[in-house]
């Protein structure tokens, strides 16, 4: 049984941020975990041991550049660059690994799309239905400009003959004149 507890302690680092911080937070303060690490290293095969002890490797800015365009799957409103969740951490690790293998940003994004679908992309792809959202500024501007143009044309046609002064304005001017006379 003792082995089992050691095993669990060592895996602790992997634990995504825990439910019960009150117990877990202080674990390294009183206890020396050096022995545990040693045992763990013996217990597991190389890759695994590497993963569970020692600090995470440093990632290049390029990793974050790519991660920024990907959604963190378990978060809301965060990209894989920003989130600290286990999945996002793993995504950044995978990105770094694939960059080291010489893959391009597009290929890496494709890797995630193959697993999650287009949903994982923060920037909607410029094809299919999401192509239309890229046209939305043009559509919006076009429709509004059309409506505005029609309005202005109508307003101008109504004002023709009034010598560029609208009837409304004449009324207003008259009203203000008459109100002034009333005031006096």
């Amino acid at each position, binding site marked *: 049984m003792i082995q089992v507890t050691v095993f669990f*302690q*060592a895996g*602790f*680092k992997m*634990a995504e*941020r*825990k439910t019960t*911080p*009150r117990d877990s*937070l*202080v*674990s390294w*303060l009183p206890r*020396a975990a050096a022995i*545990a*690490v040693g045992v763990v290293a013996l217990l597991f095969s190389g890759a695994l041991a590497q993963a569970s*002890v020692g*600090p*995470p490797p*440093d*990632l290049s*800015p390029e990793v*974050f550049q790519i991660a*920024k*365009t990907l*959604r963190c799957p378990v978060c*809301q409103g*965060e*990209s894989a660059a*920003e989130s*600290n*969740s286990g999945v996002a951490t793993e995504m950044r690790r995978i990105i770094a690994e694939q960059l080291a293998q010489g893959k391009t940003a597009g290929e890496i994004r494709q890797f995630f799309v193959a697993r999650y*679908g*287009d*949903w*994982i*992309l*923060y*920037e*909607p792809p410029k094809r299919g*239905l*999401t192509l*239309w959202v*890229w046209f*939305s*500024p043009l559509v*919006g*501007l076009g429709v509004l*400009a059309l409506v*505005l143009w029609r*309005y*202005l044309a109508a*307003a*101008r046609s*109504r*004002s023709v003959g*009034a010598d*560029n002064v*609208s009837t*409304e304005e004449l009324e207003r001017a008259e009203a203000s004149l008459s109100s002034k006379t009333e005031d006096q």
Partner: protein
Amino acid sequence: MSAGLLGGVSLLASLFFSVLGLAFSGLAYRFRDTRYLEAAKRAAPLVFAGLAAAFLALEWALITHDFSVKYVALHHSVKDPLWVTLVTPWAALEGSILLWATLQSLYTWLVSRAAGKQLDVWRAPIALATLFGIQVFFVSVMVFMVNPFTAVAQPPLDGNGPNPLLQNHWMMAVHPVLMYLGFVGLSVPFAYAVSSMVVRRYQSWVHETRFWTLVAWGFLTAAIFAGGWWSYEVLGWGGYWAFDPVENASIIPWFLATAFLHTVQVQERRGLFKAWNFSFITLAFAATVFGTFLTRSGVIQSVHAFASGPIGVVFLGFLLLVLIVGFGLLSKVSAELKDAGEIRFNSREGALLGGALLFGTFAFVILVGTLWPLVVEAASGAKVSVGAPFFFQVSIPLGVALLLLMGAGPVLPWRNAGTQVRRNLFYMGLSLGLGTGAGLALGLSLGVSLALGLFLYNLAAVALMFSQGIAERGTSLKISALQAFLELAATNKRRFGSHVVHVGVALAGLAIAVSQTYRIESEKTLRLSEVWNVAGLEVRLLPLTLQEESNRQAIIAPLKVRSTSRLSWGAGGSYQPRLNFYPSSRTPLAAPHVRYSLFNDYYFVLQEFDRDKGAWATIRLIVTPMVLWLWISGALIALGTLYLLLPNAAGFKKGATAPSA
């Protein structure tokens, strides 16, 4: 009497008075009898009193840890610090609607005081009926669906406390209240618009609601800036705006209200654009309801989403009702709204319309982008994301066009452009070109250079207008330039205030461009006392410490930072980025340590730490230039708006709108 009972009774009382107010307003309209109007006016303060009492009862229940109230049991903990307890009313759905309703009743009361005076007796009944109707809706939602005073049979000894994200920073005390004040405030111009369409008097409401629209707009602007600052300080990724669906929901009404504030001037001045103003204000108010619907229905995922429930349907119904009332009335009277007049593009009104076009497009794009995942799913069943990269890209051309118009618009005179104007435009264009060129020569990116050019262009516009005004006044009245300036600022508030707001917006544009472009982000896992040389700093990690606080525990990674380059001067010292662990949350919240400066902000975040031995910590450093200027620009806009709202100086005819020369 327990807080829960008091709150429940107060809610019922305010519902009763809201219905009464609605009924009396209806009778006043039906029988054209001002006695009913007087009665309706009296109901308004009573509704406010009831809701204020209910709100205070909720605060009281929270302060006294009255866990027999379900809301308190779910969202409060005895361990919460006092300020967290005080802001808990708007930390969850029920309480936030109570705050909303309370603020709504405050506006209703203030408007009711104008009824019969500025708001004439023909329109007042309809305007009040609209506001009371909105009031009845919100109070009914609380009484029948999400009552904040529902009791629990067996009160727990302690609760979970509010969502940790909301207790992580004091801005949470400010941002939601400002947001609600802005959202709710837009109901007032909407009520005026409805009454104007019912009574068929299409002109005067725009003069009368200028004040209310500006109040709401000012609060909305302040709330958006406060929200940005909150994001920056709390979310730990060093950004201030992420185009999250709820952020979008707050910016859509802002764009529409801004469009309204500009087109209104065309109607005030030339009587044109009546139908557009009705549309813009209906859309702006509907957009606030849309934002509420979005956060409370779960229809689109968001960070800010409250727990969803049947309430989504009710808000959807309310949203559709607002749109139907607004546009239904408008299409009924549209035959009478046939404006006549000619507008040249190179005139003030032309620029204002151009601005409205861009603001409308902006609102449209953000709405479409926010809803597109839902549209795609409805059409094909596939899930997609439309995230910040999209919104930033489409915002750039629209933003540039707006900044261009913002400079030129106020320089152009009404109706027609003359030679004086051409010279001004020449100088402005020159500063745009020189600024952009200088930026490029300094090796700045094209976008930032353009932003610099646009900023100078806008400054030049304001400076030219002032200097000409001062010169004219100075020579004709034979007074000093300073005196002329002060007199101009005091007498022509509207113009002066809007210039300040415009300078603020131009500064915000520059700050956004620079901070988005020249942000440096670096992350490294440091062992104890290891030295990290980054961005002209020498960062050393000191032993991690654990801090026990009443409502949370925190791991702090103290950093000793020394500046090693001239550029990072002032960034040295000690930093304490931390991870806060709240009992109710699985994931800790990173609280960054930020050092603000007029040049660069240094932002340290503790990402991860060695949970076994405390031997290392992963630190992220984000260096962003000019973020502080963004907050300064927000303050400028707020001050400018405040100046616009100040009562007119003595010597000005009260109630009359100052002509915007």
